[in-house]
């Protein structure tokens, strides 16, 4: 658990962060979201003490980080940044091994861990291990960045716009993989972005910031259903609802029973998100879709089903 209280950082009279209180629960991914200059990155960098706050405290597992050695502290937190920051003079294996080496792991354990990490992020250790960062694409480099951050199995992961510098298609794929990864690993993650879609897809909770202050800290769905103020409502805009339904799968909602003639309907897999299902309805100009699981129809999806599913607040478990 990370508890931030009264955090303030001043730069020559300007308050980049202004008395921020925020608690990130263990195993949750909290997105710090907001327009540029809102102070998101400053908050993130106060957690691993790359920046020392002017006042206020950051406690990790109940211990004030100001009392810890910053170098030791950082080794216990994974760190991923937008420009990746892979070490160009080291091979991919050496990059991933960086933190375990700093922690003094023995060679065999490090070697095993590298293979495990590269496979985890979907890179073949044989093929990529000996390459240098310059030889990778942006997406591959970012995967290595994530592997490096996870290598020493830190309980906490700090990510500063990690997918900001890759092309949109790659970014979408990396975001999905991140969601699967987090569902498996359940790290305590603080994730900085200014991309609303990314925040809604990945965040268990979103902390919306403006001018160094916290405007609202809640689940994506709660931000949509109960915005705390006018700024929150305007920031997310009218289509937040449309964005939030990406967090639900067809398998999560109560479908209509199959009617006669349902076999003639376009088919869709139960594993897809409500957003994709809606896109399918619109794209095919269909009144309804036949939802199939393992090839067998299990029900029907139409606008009524969608509306009914939105009537109650859910927990967005689809990954």
């Amino acid at each position: 658990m990370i508890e931030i209280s009264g955090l303030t950082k001043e730069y020559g009279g300007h308050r980049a962060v202004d008395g921020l209180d925020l608690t990130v629960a263990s195993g949750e991914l909290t997105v710090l979201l907001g327009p540029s200059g809102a102070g998101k990155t400053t908050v993130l960098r106060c957690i691993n003490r790359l920046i020392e706050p002017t006042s206020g405290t950051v406690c990790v597992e109940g211990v004030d980080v100001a009392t810890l050695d910053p170098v030791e502290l950082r080794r216990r937190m994974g760190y991923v940044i937008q420009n990746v920051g892979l070490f160009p003079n080291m091979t991919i294996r050496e990059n991933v091994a960086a933190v375990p080496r700093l922690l003094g792991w023995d060679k065999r354990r490090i070697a095993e861990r590298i293979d495990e990490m590269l496979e985890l992020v979907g890179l073949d250790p044989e093929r990529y291990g000996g390459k240098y960062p310059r030889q990778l694409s942006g997406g591959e480099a970012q995967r290595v960045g994530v592997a490096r951050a996870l290598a020493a199995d830190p309980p906490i992961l700090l990510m500063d716009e990690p997918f900001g510098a890759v092309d949109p298609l790659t970014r979408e794929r990396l975001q999905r993989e991140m969601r699967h990864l987090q569902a498996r690993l359940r790290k305590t993650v603080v994730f900085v972005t200014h991309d609303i879609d990314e925040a809604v897809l990945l965040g268990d909770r979103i902390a919306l910031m403006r001018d160094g202050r916290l405007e609202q800290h809640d689940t994506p769905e709660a931000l949509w259903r109960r915005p705390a103020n006018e700024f929150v409502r305007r920031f997310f805009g009218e289509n937040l609802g449309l964005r939030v339904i990406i967090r639900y799968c067809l398998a999560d909602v109560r479908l209509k029973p199959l009617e006669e003639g349902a076999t003639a309907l376009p088919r869709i897999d139960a594993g897809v998100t409500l957003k994709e299902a809606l896109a399918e309805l619109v794209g095919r100009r269909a009144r309804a879709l036949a939802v199939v699981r393992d090839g067998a129809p299990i029900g029907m999806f139409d606008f009524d089903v969608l509306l009914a599913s939105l009537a109650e607040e859910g927990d967005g478990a689809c990954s």
Partner: protein
Amino acid sequence: MSRTEASLHERARAVAVSGAVLGIVAALAPFGLVLRQTRIDRGAGVSLVDALGAWWWAIVACWLLVALLARSRLPLRPRGVAASLLSGLAPVLALWQAGVFAAAYATKAGDLSRVSLGPGFWLTAAAAYVAVFAATAWLEPGLLRAALSYGPFAGAGALVAGGALSDLGILKEYANNADAFGKQFALHLGYVGASVAVGLALGLALGLLAARRPASEPAVFGALNVLQVLPTLAFIGLLYPVLTRLSERAPVLASLGVRGVGWAPVVIVLAAYAVYPIARNTHAALTSLDPAVIDAARGIGMAPVQVLARVELPLATPVILAGLRVALVQTTAGAIIAGLVGGGGLGTFVFLGASETASDLMLLGVVPIVALALTFDRGLSGIETALTRWKEPA
């Protein structure tokens, strides 16, 4: 093949042709060899055409073929191999035949007479350097390219070792000074080694200081700039009273040979000159690193020393090595000054030769210095390439 590589290959054609043209001009130059009745005589020039007879045609044929190859559509590899072989062959042929000519001249004009390599020959060597440089650009880096680049030097070495050149003036001077030559050569290397070692240590430290404390940068480079523009002899002159006084006060220093003249001022001055390029490049390299890489290094928990040793210095190494290369080449030439202030070294032959107007004796000092400088230059750029495999593209 990238576009820049392709355009490099095209430009190398023009360079190789210029080398070949220069080679032919050199072969026609009136001072190919210089003939003297005695070693301090002013001498008379004779062109390579006149000196080498039929062999002259072989040398000109080499150059014409190089020019033709450079303009040809032959694939890169055979073109590169043939053109660099022929370019390297021309000066080695000229050197060998100069040796043959010198032997014949000695029997005719007597033991006191001398045959020296003249401007025409050195121009031939320069032409070969240019042409080999261009022609090897058509080859992939590797053993073959290295062999073709250094082949001409090996050829010249073999001619010297085999005694084929022992009637040339420079080798007669060597024969008269063989004992002293070994000692002065070692001393020269010692000056270079000591000064560059001191320069490297100070340069790294000052470059690092200027990079870490930007406020110190103007002071550091201001001081180094002053040292850099101070003429060598003036610098030694300024040190003279200081070192003299020091050695009088501290017998320990005096017993080590620290005096106003001799090795001490030479090493101090050369080291002071060597600091600048190393400090400059260290500073430039450290301040131009990708900030994201440094941020990541700190962010994953490297201590400041680890960031420096594992990330910053390895990334800065190619640029620092380039500075070291400049320092080495500059110091190798600069160490001549030791010959003037009682420090010995290869400069001894240069200044003695100058005072006696014995140009072959001067060459006995100059040729090894040039060879050393070229060796250091090539050697360090080889190390640079080997250390920066990570820079290679996919």
